């Protein structure tokens, strides 16, 4: 069995594999630790992965389960697309877009929830729950429905309507909390002590977070078991960013891939940038902020994994940058116009930070960059309402000719 214990990331104290998430000695977060000593044949591991199912479960050997768990809807195996048009526009070498909007509920959260709900069932829970900025809400409600589990989903009351509706439709108990995400998170941390529920991102968080490693595995596999030179990923709590690094590191240790860790570039919105601010100031802890940004899925003012995200960015020669809301909208438009991928505000943040890095000259002409797009634009339509105006015409050729400009000099 490769998963052997839960280990404190602060003081290394070990705990049994159960529904626990915090070290009793120092309050540090717990993380799954593995004994990979039996996985000693990289060529065989690569073959086994390639023969696996088209989902995150092809990476089962590196997830905290003894065998393939019973699941409802499966996440992963999303496209990695090379975009020459985006690379050209930015003047950088290679840009590869990992389109994780192509998941069952249209964000990368399907990965972590796929793992967490499977673990909840294995541990005997009847009820799953979460504190969410929206994408996690969609995923928990859907995966719980597919698994036949009851669910409670807690979100900030001012969340985008699309995310509220696309959660409630699955028949969950949707709770809109009058407060911001950090208030929701605090409430759920308190509730998790009072109810025997599997809060996927509280008491099941050590397992939940493991699901994000598959975003590293998948990119490496799709690049032919090679590493990119740089990755650009959004940073909210810091968990995804940190776990992508962990995924690459595990495969490097096992010899499945060779080379060194890419430079990790994190992306935040200026209106909620506690990690970017700490990076800039050279601090190793993040001072909490009150979020005020259109990128609501990244609006975590008190990011518990921020310290680890800072550490990853610094030791890989990366960075954590922030962009203004106007740049976020431009980022959404840039990605859509050059790749045909419509992303939500978080993806706008990530694309805008890529553009900023390119402009600053941080990306070399021969660098291969992977851009992590974590959610679908249909989830945050308000963001683009002001930049889209259709031509309105009568159903007549003349009206069309008078109103709509001619493309490419062609006669209409």
């Amino acid at each position, binding site marked *: 069995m490769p998963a052997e214990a839960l280990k404190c990331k602060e003081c290394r104290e070990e705990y049994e594999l159960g529904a626990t998430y915090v070290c009793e000695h*120092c309050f540090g977060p717990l993380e799954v630790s593995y004994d990979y000593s039996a996985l000693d044949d990289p060529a065989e591991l690569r073959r086994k992965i390639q023969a696996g199912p088209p989902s995150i479960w092809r990476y089962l050997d590196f997830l905290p389960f003894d065998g393939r768990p019973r699941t409802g809807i499966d996440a992963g195996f999303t496209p990695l697309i090379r975009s020459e048009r985006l690379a050209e526009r930015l003047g950088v070498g290679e840009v590869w877009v990992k389109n994780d909007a192509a998941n069952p509920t249209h964000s990368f959260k399907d990965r972590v929830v796929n793992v967490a709900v499977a673990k909840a069932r294995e541990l005997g829970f009847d009820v799953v729950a979460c504190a969410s*900025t929206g994408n996690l809400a969609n995923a928990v409600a859907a995966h719980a429905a597919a698994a036949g589990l009851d669910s409670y989903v807690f979100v900030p009351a001012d969340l985008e309507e699309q995310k509220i509706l696309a959660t409630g439709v699955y028949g969950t108990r949707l709770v809109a909390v009058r407060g911001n995400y950090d208030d929701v998170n605090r409430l759920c941390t308190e509730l998790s002590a009072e109810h025997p529920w599997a809060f996927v991102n509280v008491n099941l968080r050590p397992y939940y977070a493991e699901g994000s490693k598959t975003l590293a595995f998948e990119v490496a596999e799709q690049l032919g078991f090679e590493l990119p030179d740089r990755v650009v990923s959004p940073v909210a709590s810091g968990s995804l960013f940190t776990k992508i690094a962990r995924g690459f590191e595990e495969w490097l240790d096992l010899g499945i891939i060779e080379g060194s860790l890419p430079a990790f570039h994190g992306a935040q919105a200026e209106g909620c940038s506690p990690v970017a601010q700490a990076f800039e100031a050279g601090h190793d802890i993040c001072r909490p902020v009150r979020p005020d940004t259109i990128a609501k899925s990244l609006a975590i003012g008190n990011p518990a994994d921020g310290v680890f995200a800072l550490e990853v960015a610094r030791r890989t020669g990366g960075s954590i940058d922030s962009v203004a809301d106007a740049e976020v909208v431009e980022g959404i438009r840039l990605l859509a116009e050059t790749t045909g991928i419509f992303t939500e505000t978080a993806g706008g943040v990530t694309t805008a930070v890529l553009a900023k890095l390119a402009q600053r000259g941080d990306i070399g002409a021969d660098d291969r960059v992977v851009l992590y797009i974590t959610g679908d634009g249909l989830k945050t339509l308000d963001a683009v309402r002001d930049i889209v105006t259709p031509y309105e015409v009568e159903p007549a050729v003349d009206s069309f000719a008078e109103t709509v400009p001619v493309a490419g000099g062609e006669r209409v």
Partner: protein
Amino acid sequence: MGVTVKIPAQLRALTANEAEAEVEAGSVGEALEAVYERYDGLRDRITEDGELRRFVNVYVGGEDIRFGDGLDTPVSDGDEITILPAVAGG
């Protein structure tokens, strides 16, 4: 009526399973001191070198004390102080 300090589930083994402690205090720091005095072992779990450990969050009336004056944040009778582990979200 004093100030109520809510003990997180992870530390209740040290408080004979008490979920709350009522203390007399004028600041968050004083309130926590009073709780440390009452229950052996709590101080080392919550603080290191006299500072709050970095994964410990403390709230007064739901407001993170880092938005106030930290341990100097004033409290008065009827206030509720909550100690919780920092948890990443999503």
